[in-house]
């Protein structure tokens, strides 16, 4: 039994009262984006309603209040990741944006022809394409860590891949399609032994796992606010300060400069060097409230409860005839991907939607992974702390209905 009062938590999320096709909404698409608690919605309204101003250079009251709220978020995120320095927290538009920033600055400056970049079979397209673009431009070689049939990375193959040619490793902490939790500490340590830098794509991990970038010794860690009950269009890139300092700026514009003349521009210090233009102030301000919300519940409590949901869902779904769970990694977050014999995932999604149940179907932006698994796609149910076993029962009944209607 969870120490959390799930019914009370559900009341914090207004969207859970919505009706979909005349039914109570069952929201199982949390790996795509999580819903937002009142505290986050109020923070957004409160910012725009009471202290909206452009930050950092204004000397008036509102500008100072907005700047201080904006920088409070940076401090909250520093603590959330246990980063050594506040200026190591760069605000981005999301995980994808953070990965592109690293590929386009660190990658373009420090990688050269023949250098090897390692990713894994589990990657989201966001952690494939930016590296492919870099490889195309610089003549680097992209190498891919294979997986076994359960969805775990084959780390022996990774170790064999590493050499003095390896200059960068970019892997996902938690697979969005299968839920696999990767041993990123091992991956980082091994990469460092050959002198490579490592980026961890934390999009799926940030809401489920306690992240300590110093213990992990990650060089970069990227995640998105919207997957941890925060607003969309706001993300974080953590980078070690010495590496960030050595990197050239990404986008040019206001805020990222120290001095501009028509002859030459000198750049601002961290983190502002990487934050050109007016940032997404409201969403940055609001993310602190999402993090406070998670901290109040306790990440360990959330993880323990989500594990209960995962275990229950795995047991219940396994009993459905013709259903095969895809992804049976040793360690997983609360994501269950599955296929039904003789039924296309899209049909599963459409009929469940008619019953008010939101899941995701398709390739989950991981086409190379689906190819490796020999599947056109899967149906994926992903759970958050506000979900219940009753809702999982509805999913099971819904899948029985899918079978009855289609087969």
């Amino acid at each position, binding site marked *: 039994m969870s120490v959390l009062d799930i019914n009370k938590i559900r009341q914090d999320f207004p969207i859970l009262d919505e009706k979909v096709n005349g039914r109570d909404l069952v929201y199982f698409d949390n790996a795509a984006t999580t819903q937002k608690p009142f505290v986050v919605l109020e923070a957004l309204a409160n910012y725009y309603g009471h202290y909206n101003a452009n930050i950092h250079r204004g000397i008036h009251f509102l500008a100072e209040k907005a700047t201080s709220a904006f920088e409070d978020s940076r401090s909250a995120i520093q603590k959330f990741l246990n980063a050594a320095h506040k200026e190591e927290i760069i605000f981005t538009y999301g995980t994808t944006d953070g990965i592109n920033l690293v590929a386009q600055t660190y990658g373009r400056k420090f990688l050269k022809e023949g250098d090897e970049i390692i990713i894994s079979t589990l990657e989201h397209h966001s952690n494939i394409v930016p590296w492919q673009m870099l490889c195309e431009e610089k003549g680097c070689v992209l190498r891919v860590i294979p997986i076994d049939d359960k969805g775990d990375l084959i780390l022996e193959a990774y170790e064999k891949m590493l050499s003095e040619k390896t200059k960068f490793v970019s892997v996902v902490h938690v697979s969005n399609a299968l839920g696999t939790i990767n041993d990123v500490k091992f991956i980082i340590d091994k990469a460092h032994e050959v002198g490579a830098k490592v980026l961890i794509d934390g999009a799926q991990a940030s809401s489920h796992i306690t992240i300590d970038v110093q213990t992990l010794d990650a060089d970069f860690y990227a995640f998105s606010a919207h997957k941890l009950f925060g607003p969309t269009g706001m993300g974080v890139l953590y980078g070690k300060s010495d590496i960030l300092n050595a990197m050239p700026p990404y986008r040019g514009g206001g805020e990222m400069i120290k001095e501009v003349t028509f002859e030459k521009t000198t750049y601002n210090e961290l983190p502002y060097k990487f934050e050109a233009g007016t940032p997404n102030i409201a969403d940055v301000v609001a993310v602190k409230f999402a993090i406070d919300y998670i901290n109040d519940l306790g990440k360990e409590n959330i993880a323990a409860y989500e594990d209960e949901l995962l275990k229950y869902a795995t047991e219940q779904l396994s009993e459905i005839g013709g259903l095969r769970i895809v992804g049976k990694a040793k360690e997983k977050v609360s994501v269950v991907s599955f296929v039904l014999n003789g039924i*296309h995932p899209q049909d599963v999604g459409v009929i469940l939607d008619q019953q008010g149940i939101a899941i995701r179907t398709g390739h989950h932006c991981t086409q190379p992974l689906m190819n490796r698994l020999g599947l056109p796609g899967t149906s994926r149910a992903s759970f958050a702390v506000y979900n219940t076993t009753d809702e999982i029962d509805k999913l099971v009944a819904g899948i029985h209905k899918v079978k009855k209607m289609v087969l």
Partner: protein
Amino acid sequence: MTINEIQDEIIEEFELFDDWEGKYEYIIDLGKKLPKLSDEFKIEDNIIKGCQSIVWLHAYKQDGKLYFEADSEAIIVKGLVSMLVKVMTNHTPEEILKSDLYFIDKVGLASHLAQTRSNGLASMVKQMRSYAVAYQAKEN
């Protein structure tokens, strides 16, 4: 029958259903009944882009009229596609280009026409119309 007469017939058929289950069972049934597209037409060029499931559309012209055949991996899409084919096939390019496909909305399936990435019905309609444009151009 004209395009509108066929649409009206479909709308009438759907009036029999008062819940989503009946409606979707009917669509699934249409999907099951749609003749399988011959493998020679299941080629890359005939795949409609933008669908979550693969949809093939094959078109040909005979005696001044356009004919469509289609298939899909997913049964509901196949049923929807079957209705589109029924409405659009056996008409001149001019009739197809002039047509206003109101039946999808009237039978309560408008969400399937939505421009989301998971859904290819809108792309399918667009593709049918571009075949009509192409055949019209060839004639002139």
